[in-house]
């Protein structure tokens, strides 16, 4: 992510509880966290990870008995223990920068999901002491909730999300074309679905208004009306959604001539409220649908369209398997 504007304060390094308000380059207000210090909670959870991990490695049999699972699962428990310790050390060592800490907290959330899945399997197996397994599951679920909240709050501090649950993204790309050419193409909003993968259509209703339809998970679509809030030819376009939108959003795109005649720097700022709120955003991130990367991929495609006239694809090429591309890797070209 490229952040170059002066006067932009991220408040990442603040210690202890405090209250902050700052303005970023586009005049959006951002608030810090009041009262609650998720960094301290994270540290506590880090030590908890190490303690639990040591217990799992040192006394796997005692622990399986405690949670009501029969049979010898020492190997599995020791593996889980090592995972716990890795997360714990990561959290304790990764206090700065905040982004690193958040990553390790997400590793705890992942670990929780694994623990819950294993406990679920134990419940189903019928060979376990049901009561104890249920109690253990409840305990893990509690910790999971704490981990999730802590991770999300850290994410908010990291600049990805704001207090009210909106997601903020800033991305930039350099394109080997003039600002005039790029502005002209972007200003005709009907062109946007050509490179914005999640957009189905944009209908321009008048000079300042347009209707947007985008793809949402599970084959659904979301729609909104948008108005242009600022339009400086060859320099900047800013927009925001109107009342009654499925996805509240606002954003701007700037076109700045790059130094040395090396084309144009295109910079996008966006802020939107994900349909399922912060939890939805967190889940999307785990599934690889990171909004930062979505915008980044969209800008990459914009660059391709402007420089080469089309977007390169591999979908439809031959391969020695049923599908021409890979489900795991080729998401940018799969429709």
């Amino acid at each position: 992510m490229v952040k170059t504007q002066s006067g932009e304060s991220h408040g990442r390094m603040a210690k202890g509880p405090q209250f902050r308000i700052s303005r970023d380059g586009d005049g959006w207000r951002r608030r810090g966290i009041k009262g609650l210090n998720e960094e301290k909670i994270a540290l506590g959870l880090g030590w908890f990870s190490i303690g639990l991990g040591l217990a799992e490695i040192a006394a796997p049999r005692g622990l399986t008995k405690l949670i009501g699972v029969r049979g010898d699962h020492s190997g599995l428990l020791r593996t889980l223990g090592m995972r716990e310790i890795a997360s714990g050390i990561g959290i304790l060592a990764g206090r700065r920068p905040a982004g690193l800490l958040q990553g390790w907290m997400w590793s705890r959330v992942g670990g929780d999901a694994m623990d819950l899945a294993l406990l679920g399997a134990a419940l189903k197996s019928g060979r376990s002491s049901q009561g104890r397994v249920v109690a253990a599951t409840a305990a893990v679920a509690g910790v999971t909730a704490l981990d999730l909240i802590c991770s999300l709050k850290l994410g908010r501090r990291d600049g990805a999300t704001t207090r009210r649950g909106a997601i903020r993204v800033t991305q930039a790309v350099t394109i080997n074309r003039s600002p005039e050419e790029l502005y002209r193409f972007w200003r005709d909003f009907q062109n946007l679905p050509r490179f914005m993968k999640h957009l189905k259509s944009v209908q321009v209703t008048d000079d300042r208004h347009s209707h947007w339809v985008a793809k949402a998970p599970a084959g659904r679509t979301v729609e909104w009306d948008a108005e242009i809030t600022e339009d400086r030819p060859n320099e900047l376009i800013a927009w925001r959604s109107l009342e009654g939108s499925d996805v509240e959003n606002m954003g701007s795109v700037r076109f700045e001539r790059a130094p040395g005649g090396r084309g144009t720097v295109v910079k996008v700022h966006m802020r939107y409220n994900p349909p399922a709120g912060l939890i939805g955003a967190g889940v999307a991130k785990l599934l690889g649908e990171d909004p930062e990367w979505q915008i980044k991929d969209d800008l990459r495609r914009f660059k391709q369209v402007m420089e080469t006239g089309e977007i390169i694809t591999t979908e439809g090429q031959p391969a020695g398997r049923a599908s021409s591309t890979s489900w795991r890797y080729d998401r940018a070209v799969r429709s």
Partner: protein
Amino acid sequence: MKANCWYGKQDVRVVDVPDPKILNKSDAIVKITTTAICGSDLHLYNGFIPTMEKGDILGHEFMGEVVEVGSEVKKLKVGDRVVVAFPISCGACFFCQREMFSLCENSNPNAWMAEKLFGHSPAGIFGYSHLTGGFAGGQAEFARVPFADVGAFKIENGLADEQVLFLSDIFPTGYMAAENCDIKPGDTMAVWGCGPVGQFAVRSAFLLGAERVIAIDRFPERLRMAEEGGAETINYEEAGVYDTLMEMTGGRGPDSCIDAVGLEAHAHGPLYLYDRVKQAMMLELDRPIVLRQAILACRNGGTVSIPGVYGGFDDKIPVGALMNKALMIRTGQTHVQHYFRPLLDRIKNGEIDPSFVVTHRMRLDEAPKGYDLFLNKHDDCIKIVLKP
């Protein structure tokens, strides 16, 4: 059509797949007349390059005849005989316009993945994992060539396939490695690895004016081929590389060192075992043994040029030596398209005949046998070409 596909570690098979189609307007379809197995294909074969998928078509050294062109293809027409560059390059971005074709910004649809690993993505590459685009390769009867006007180079009749095929990769790769050394009259070069790229590096060094070239390997037939190209040789199984190089260069060290080996280097001693174990445990992607040797052996203020493939984060690189000896490092995937014309001219002028490197000729459906032969260096195998 038939194509040679990757199905896992040391498991490649020639299977029937659909024929390629035009997918982008600047594509061409090429009916392949000759293709080859590259040393870097062995890294895929051994499972060292991540993001391979079962069924990926291999191969990035191929040539043939244009049988179909997309609506935006301007320079090529059906019937043209072409050699295809292994990097896929758009011709319009910042890097392509500066002829740094292997750094094209528009040809890797999976750039996001490479960015996570490398910070920035290189160009797409034929048949070389999804990290570089997941493009179907050229060990097949037909191939689709994106940005065909940039990547497919027209060859007039009169030269045999084997004389021009290696313009697709190994000749320019060896040549760029030597060019990167900025050779001055009187220079002594050392080349680690006498596989096909090493062989072309040896010969290119002489073409570019080197006084002496010292080639290092352990296979007698490869050392012999280097000697035929004018090199002196060191068999590292018989003599210590550093000591011998110092003896041969009067204690100063070679002016430039070329690592034409890359991530699967072999050596003797505890450091080799250390890297082998770390690689097996997935703690280290590469075995940078040659790179270490090259940095330590290079003369002060000299150049270390790396055409060999590396993929990850490596240990025990002597950065102290690099800094204190004021060394220059030059590397990169080859900007093949930049070298097409000048190297074809050298072939036409009779300065070099690249077909010297070919030791084996096989049919495409013998590709699995070819990989095994090439990997194990059986039957003095140095370079295999395949005929569909």
